[in-house]
């Protein structure tokens, strides 16, 4: 008796579940494409809006939007690719363009870019599209394999109120500070103890320091590791000393206890690197006035530099609905209304140049110096070095024990010397993979 009712219950439940699986019957003529990405709830909400707009425009197509936590995205994507279930459209990181393109996973969109009625390639940031170009040997040139979700310049933000209180004036966009002036200002801004401590700056962008100083992780054609170059180690040591010697930046342990981002929001850090994606959060939660300033220049070279990043939309080569998938990618990347939504939510600088230079610049929301974002895109921003190589294992290695420099256990030179050979080995392995 118990047996039978248990069995019935099981079968009923199983039937329920199984029927749920086949409930995705679509009406004739309609088909579904899958789109996979990650994001905070705000981003996801914005995407849901944009997808709704897309479905309105293309009533025959339904979009199945799959979100995965960012940290698991790579794993998930790889398993899906391995079993021939690549999503039609998915987040494509610039560093994946080379391996994916040479393995035939992502579709070549160059024709689409030139012959579509959704956008005009001339009205899109050149550098944004270039992140997804690959000509078979060098990334950044050649066929287009992805459309940019956004281009994210990393700018230096500062807390105006803290500046005023300490009597510090932010530099003019055209006359940035030198490193020494930066440190002097940071020292003025650093005060207090314990829970009231205010730090002059968040940990400094290593890219900005290294590139400004004329150094880089790799040489120009990305075949040799150059971290032992004095220009590199000098910059690395300077960044570490901001905390170790000058005391204007939180220590490594403090940083891992409470990220500077939170400290900045609490008004306990005066300067910090931010991207356009932070705008929305700042508008909502920042209880102080803030603005952007130009990145400081290295006293050795008088140059400044910083990175820009981004994520793109790739279309699967195995997709059965390439046209629709490409349309979705283009829609999400360039559709005017979608871009406007993105901009108004404080998620990004528009991909469309005219919108960026007109509507965005004239909007009266913070920051006042939004041109800094545009300046970085057009002028002194660079693509991260590790996105140029077939894989970034060498970079991962560099970072794995970088903390020993931040804590002062090793000097920059000692550390660079200790990892140089292994990094080179990994880089060589990656190049070997690429040319296989």
């Amino acid at each position, binding site marked *: 008796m118990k047996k039978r009712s248990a069995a019935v219950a099981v079968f009923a439940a199983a039937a329920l579940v199984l029927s749920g699986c086949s409930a995705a019957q679509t009406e004739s003529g309609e088909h579904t494409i899958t789109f996979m990405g990650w994001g905070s709830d705000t981003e996801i909400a914005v995407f849901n809006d944009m997808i709704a707009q897309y479905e309105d425009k293309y009533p025959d197509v339904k979009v199945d939007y799959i979100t995965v936590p960012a940290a698991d995205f790579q794993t998930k994507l790889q398993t899906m690719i391995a079993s021939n279930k690549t999503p039609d459209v998915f987040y494509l990181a610039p560093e994946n363009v080379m391996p994916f393109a*040479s393995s035939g*996973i992502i579709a070549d969109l160059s024709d689409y870019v030139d012959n579509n009625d959704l956008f005009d390639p001339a009205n899109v940031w050149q550098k944004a599209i270039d992140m997804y170009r690959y000509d078979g040997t060098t990334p950044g040139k050649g066929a287009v394999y992805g459309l940019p979700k956004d281009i994210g310049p990393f700018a230096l933000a500062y807390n105006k109120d803290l500046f005023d209180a300490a009597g510090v004036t932010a530099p003019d966009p055209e006359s940035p500070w030198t490193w020494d002036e930066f440190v002097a200002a940071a020292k003025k801004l650093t005060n207090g103890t314990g829970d009231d401590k205010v730090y002059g700056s968040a940990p400094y962008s290593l890219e900005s320091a290294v590139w400004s100083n004329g150094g880089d992780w790799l040489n120009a054609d990305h075949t040799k590791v150059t971290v032992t170059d004095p220009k590199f180690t000098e910059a690395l040591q300077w960044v570490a000393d901001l905390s170790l010697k000058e005391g204007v930046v939180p220590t490594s*342990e*403090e940083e891992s*206890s409470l990220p500077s981002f939170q400290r900045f929001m609490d008004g306990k850090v005066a300067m910090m690197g931010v991207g356009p994606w932070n705008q929305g959060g700042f508008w909502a939660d920042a209880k102080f006035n803030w603005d952007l300033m130009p990145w400081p220049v290295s006293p050795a070279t008088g140059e400044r530099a910083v990175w820009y990043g981004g994520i793109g939309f790739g279309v699967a080569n195995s997709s059965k609905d390439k046209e629709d998938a490409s349309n979705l990618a283009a829609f999400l990347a360039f559709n005017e209304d979608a871009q406007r939504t993105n901009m108004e939510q404080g998620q990004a600088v528009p991909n469309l140049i005219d919108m960026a230079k007109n509507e965005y610049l004239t909007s009266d929301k913070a920051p006042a110096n939004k041109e800094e974002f545009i300046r970085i895109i057009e002028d002194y921003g660079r693509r991260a070095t590790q996105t140029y190589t077939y894989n970034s294992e060498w970079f991962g290695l560099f970072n794995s024990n970088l903390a020993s420099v931040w804590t002062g256990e090793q000097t920059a030179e000692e550390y660079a010397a200790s990892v140089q050979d292994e990094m080179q080995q990994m880089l060589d392995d990656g190049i070997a993979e690429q040319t296989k």
Partner: protein
Amino acid sequence: MTTMTTRRTQSMRRRERFWGLLFVTPIGLQVVLFCIVPIGIAVVAGFTNWNVIKGTYDFIGLDNFFEFLTDKYFWTAAGNTVFMLIPIPFYLFFGILFAIGSHRGTPGNQVFRILFFLPYISSVVALVVMWKWLFNYQYGLVNQLLAGIGIQGPDWLGDPAWIKTTIVIMIIWKMIGITSIYVLAALKNIPEVYYEAARLDGASPIRMFFQITLPMLSPAIFFLTIVGIIGSLQTFVEVQLFTSDGGRNYSAATITYYIWQKAFVSNELGLAFATAIFFALVILGVTLIQFRMSRRWVYEGE
């Protein structure tokens, strides 16, 4: 007379065989479909250089095996993995202790049992987030309490010297409850009669513990040790959630983490599978040795 008994015995034996096999069919199916087949794929893949992204593979013989055996990260992970065995004696000890206390009918028993179980029933994701917060260098409860008695707590999560210890502490904490439940179930199976007889003989509680309780618990302890070792050696989720890269200097990565990295991060599936095969054989070996040794000290009721 004899023929009839023989026939009946034969038919009974046949029935026994039938039912025996029938009863193990479900689990057998599970093992074949969801274990053996995938293992088959994995074993074959261990001898190739399967690239998931490209979809190519060539047979490269034992190359993968040489590669991980000469990889210093593998050996670091191996050391870390052995470290993960440390929780076992601790939670066994406390688990037995609390099971006995519970069995004795200590006041407040029911409540304690629920409390002891809390760590085990919580989602690992939430536990790790909570634990990370507890052991936060500046604001975590642990370091704040330590500061209160004048000790500067270490950087539990960042310092390579401490991260493993933090994970181990969390595992001990998590496993005490479930261990005590197992032991409690086993304790309840010890006939009270034995204790009565011993008491009549004038045995002290300590003597009774070592002469009756422990031996009667030995099957349960054996089980817990085997499962504990197999499980601890495969520690993975905690490492993955606590650190994003195996810890500074690879100080927390276990072998399973190494395998996962090779498979899903570096995309070297062949290498990952080869390492996994090797590791599985090691675990199998350890377990077989334990079985052999168990004949000496595990009591099996007839």
